[in-house]
């Protein structure tokens, strides 16, 4: 780039070609999806189906989740196998708001109680459902609940210097425990059915195509913004300390940094991002239930990141989109083969492409930009 871009964003992206490509793709998505879905008539072969819109929206939310995992795993070396839990908690917070919005339009017509509570013969709203009809409070909870869980969990784990495989295992235990808890009817979160049949969000009808498109655009903007924020973090001195912790933890402690504080900070920030991803996911998919807490989900996210290229941010996003696209394709064409294929992909990536697809890209370029990508 010969010219000097006047904007802050331009200056920011000068050294980040991959990030520039990513933001360009996201911008194109924001333009093309509304155009092809809303403006192009349905009869035209160029028309984008509402199924495709939902699918792209889902990929964007998964990409944000992968970004969150890459930040803790790729940069801080914390292999979290429980990030789907933060995603699901954010989703549940959004789901509570959407449930309260249904009001008397539910099957049982109760103006306050969601259907499943009427069905369970409950007479009043549990305390934690109060105020969740207010959008701002629900949005606060989207960030606060995953963040708080990550804070408590991380504080206990990092303070006791639990690392490596042991940490991964207890994150699995955490998401599994949450799944079991959310399956119970008396938790007050709809048991195994979870929440569904949402009507509207902030007064906008969730069944209207334009609302879906707007949600997709918001997801794309959230993803782009989160990417820039994550990139700013990993390029700051804090980011350099964090990657140093990944590479030589005891050395960092020896220099005088409180390793636990840094890990905790990154872990909580990442959990909040995952929660936001979950909150964007639920209104687009239209359902949230305890299966989102499945341990397998968290492992899949790690596979997306590994395939895309850990420690690169954009690689995680690309990995999430590509793997999920492949999943969509295979689960229709060859449903029984998908899990084998995913496993094989993971093994092949680990053995042959330790840097993932991003590493493959970097290898094709001359050395200088390649190291820039892998270092930062």
């Amino acid at each position: 780039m010969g010219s000097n871009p006047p904007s802050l964003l331009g200056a920011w992206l000068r050294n980040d070609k991959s990030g520039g490509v990513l933001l360009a793709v996201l911008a194109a998505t924001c333009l093309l999806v509304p155009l092809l879905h809303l403006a192009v008539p349905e009869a035209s072969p160029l028309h984008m189906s509402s199924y495709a819109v939902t699918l792209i929206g889902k990929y964007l939310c998964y990409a944000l989740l992968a970004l969150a995992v890459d930040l803790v795993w790729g940069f801080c070396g914390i292999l979290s196998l429980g990030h789907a839990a933060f995603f699901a908690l954010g989703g549940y917070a959004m789901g509570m708001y959407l449930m309260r919005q249904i009001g008397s339009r539910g099957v049982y017509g109760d103006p306050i109680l969601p259907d499943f509570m009427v069905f369970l013969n409950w007479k009043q709203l549990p305390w934690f459902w109060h105020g969740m009809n207010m959008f701002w409070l629900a949005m606060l909870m989207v960030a606060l609940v995953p963040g708080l869980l990550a804070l408590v969990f991380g504080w206990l784990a990092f303070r006791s210097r639990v690392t490596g495989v042991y940490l991964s295992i207890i994150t699995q235990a955490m998401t599994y425990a949450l799944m079991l808890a959310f399956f119970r009817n008396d938790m007050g979160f709809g048991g195994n059915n979870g929440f569904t049949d949402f009507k509207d969000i902030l007064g906008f009808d969730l069944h209207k195509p334009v609302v879906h498109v707007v949600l997709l655009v918001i997801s794309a903007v959230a993803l782009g913004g989160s990417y820039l924020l994550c990139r700013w973090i990993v390029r700051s001195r804090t980011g350099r300390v964090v990657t140093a912790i990944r590479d030589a933890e005891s050395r960092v402690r020896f220099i005088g940094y409180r390793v636990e504080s840094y890990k905790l900070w990154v872990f909580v920030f990442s959990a909040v991002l995952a929660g936001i991803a979950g909150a964007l996911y639920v209104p687009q998919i239209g359902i949230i239930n305890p299966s989102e807490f499945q341990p397998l989900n968290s492992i899949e996210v790690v596979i997306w990141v590994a395939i895309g290229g850990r420690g690169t941010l954009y690689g995680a996003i690309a990995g999430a989109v590509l793997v999920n696209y492949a999943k969509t394709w295979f689960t229709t064409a060859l449903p029984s083969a998908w899990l084998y294929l995913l496993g094989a992909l993971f093994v092949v990536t680990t053995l042959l492409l330790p840097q993932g697809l991003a590493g493959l890209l970097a290898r094709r370029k001359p050395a200088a930009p390649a190291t820039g990508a892998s270092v930062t």
Partner: protein
Amino acid sequence: MNARLSWQKLVGRSRSTSPPPRHGALVSGDPVEAGPDASHGYILYLEDLTVSFDGFKALNALTLYVGTGELLCIIGPNGAGKTTMMDVITGKTRPDHGSAWFGQTLDLLALTEPEIAQAGIGRKFQKPTVFEKHTAFENLELALAGSRSVWRNLAAELSGEQRDRIAAVLAQIGLAAQSATPARRLSHGQKQWLEIGMLLMQNPRLLLVDEPVAGMTPQEVEKTAELLLSLAGEHSVVVVEHDMEFVRRIARRVTVLHQGSVLAEGTMDEVQANPKVVEVYLGEQ
């Protein structure tokens, strides 16, 4: 008989030439922040240190003093207690008996590992551990004495003064041309110097250096010798080393450890002439 006499003579002399004028009075304010008070000519006082591991005495009533600005070499056969002594000084291992003071006022046995590092004791481990993915410059930046807060470091920028300091240390350790090179691309010797540089960034009063020249080429050994000699004076330096030629090259005073206590002290020639030392250590070679 003769050996026994000279050993007593040596021990006696070491006691008489190293008086421990330490009062242990605490200064007001935070002693860790204030750093050591080395006004009596000594930076480190180790007295009567004993460390046992399951009955094995790794240190046995070890008494040792390090002068301010001194370059002291410690030699001794394997299991003599060299590493354990370093561990006690840096707070990694707690002794069963004895005392360890940093200058006049800092009781090392009462401080935690990070507090000791902050007070001004830097330790270089045998195996170089630098941050492989970071450049030489960034390695020094992270070691720079400064804020350790997550939030503040998010927006932290290096001041001109700090950049100059990093550049000065890069020049001192001979890596000025490698400033932007990732540490994983540096040679073994360069990594060792980089690690010494990281210690220097924290302005330590006392540097503990564990086997700095193991695995180095002769040219690298020579450069390391020059580096360590240039550090003495401004810093007190304790070097643990097996390479006798290297010790001869840099040492002014040599202390021989054996079975957890001081066997002999003196110049390299005096120590090598000591029959007791010849018997337990040099005789093996």
